């Protein structure tokens, strides 16, 4: 085919200008602020960005880019738009049940346990894990690093105060996950909010960490990262899994979300499957 025929065959209707705008916006954010969203799933980004356009009365992604570059306060809002901040306590009770049965007994053989909870959002699942460790008498000798890219949700996590709106669901999840008491044993209720017991967070360090650009910061026995990788493309998934693999000690555990998997990634061979359905893995002994 000659060049001319190539041009003629090109259908301008198919040319998606919005995709160009999106690529330019993500590049701009990376250049200006060092936050790299270029390998996030595009459908997710587009939905959030279109919502922002509507809310702020903007006509195009290019207009939004201009505001993001020149208006720091607007950028802060935009960053909140893109972050993943939906979570719940004991989300997928079957997973926590399996964790109790298949991971805890191994952890009990360690004198000290280090856990990295990556992408912890507002902390509901960090407290869930802490409660399990407490019930298994392991919390005292555990150090949990709970990290997220979003500083404002980390503040919520640090305080451990949540609206009581969802507490019924959380209590049910807790019992379904094999809880040994009542969820209410771990919080006090006040003014429509619940405050989780400070003894749970004593050994938790909440810190700002960007999975895309930051490196390994500790050797840990357990990496907990649920429903974060589904927002990334394959390239970024592999990059983050490499980070997890390097952070894990020998025979360390990796827990992913129930719809996430090491299948079709570069790390399928580096881990043994502990629970196929609940996505619990153990680093191979190489």
């Amino acid at each position, binding site marked *: 085919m000659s060049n001319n025929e190539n041009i003629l065959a090109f259908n301008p209707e198919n040319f998606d200008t919005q995709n160009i705008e999106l690529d330019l916006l993500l590049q701009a954010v990376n250049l200006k602020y060092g936050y790299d969203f270029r390998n996030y799933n595009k459908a*997710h980004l*587009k939905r959030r960005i279109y919502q922002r356009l509507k809310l702020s009365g903007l006509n195009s992604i290019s207009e939004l880019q201009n505001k993001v570059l020149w208006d720091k306060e607007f950028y802060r809002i935009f960053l909140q738009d893109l972050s*993943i901040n*939906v979570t719940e306590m004991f989300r997928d009770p079957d997973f926590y049940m399996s964790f109790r049965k298949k991971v805890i007994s191994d952890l009990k053989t360690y004198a000290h346990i280090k856990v990295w909870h990556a992408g912890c959002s507002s902390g509901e699942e960090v407290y869930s894990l802490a409660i399990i460790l407490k019930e298994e008498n392991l919390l005292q000798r555990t150090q949990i690093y709970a990290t997220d890219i979003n500083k404002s949700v980390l503040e919520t996590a640090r305080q451990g105060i949540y609206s009581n709106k969802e507490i019924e669901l959380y209590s049910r999840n807790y019992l379904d996950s094999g809880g040994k008491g009542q969820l209410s044993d771990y919080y006090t209720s006040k003014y429509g909010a619940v405050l989780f017991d400070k003894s749970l967070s004593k050994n938790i360090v909440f810190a700002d960490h960007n999975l895309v650009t930051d490196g390994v910061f500790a050797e840990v026995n357990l990496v907990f990262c649920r429903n974060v990788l*589904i927002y990334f493309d*394959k390239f970024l998934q592999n990059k983050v899994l490499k980070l997890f693999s390097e952070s894990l000690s020998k025979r360390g555990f990796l827990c992913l979300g129930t719809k*996430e*998997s090491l299948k079709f990634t570069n790390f399928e061979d580096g881990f043994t499957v502990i629970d196929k359905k609940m996505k619990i893995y153990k680093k191979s002994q190489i």
Partner: protein
Amino acid sequence: MKMTKLVVVGASSGGIEAISKFLSKLPVSLNIPVIIVLHIGNNKISTLLSQLNNKTSFLVKEAEEKETINPKTVYFAPPNYHIQVEENRTISLSTDAKVNFSRPSIDVLFETAAWVYKDEIIGILLTGSNNDGSKGLLEIKKHGGKTIVENPKTAFSKTMPYTATTLFEPDYIINIEDIAVKITELCIE
């Protein structure tokens, strides 16, 4: 309209029966993928999927993260996850906030599918007693896709299909029994 490359379906209350009727009438000759959002709460869908598998020549399965969208396959959104269509015609899942009090939300599937498949898609909104799906169906229409709404008069629950008809004029408003035939017609055109 160009050749249809994808059919997307949304259903809520009364949806199991409606979807079952629809799938059982899909002709073997139809060589396209179908993606379905059915509001089913946190219930498991494995039993439903195996029942449906016996009723159609299509492969019926729960959609997996990063899966390529293949013809002659029916993908169901996993309970409690949104399902999205990506630019490279793969599926992505998300645990984002509920949309229209629903996760999976029909709007999320319809919108993201419309952005990618543009005029190569058919959107179908079936029975349901909430307002999910109509905005997404409009997005499909805007991008040049075809839109079908189950006849609210004969639907198990009329609210969802009726809401769509108040928002815009869908291409076809037909009874559940006739939808598979209509799709076959549109795909042959």
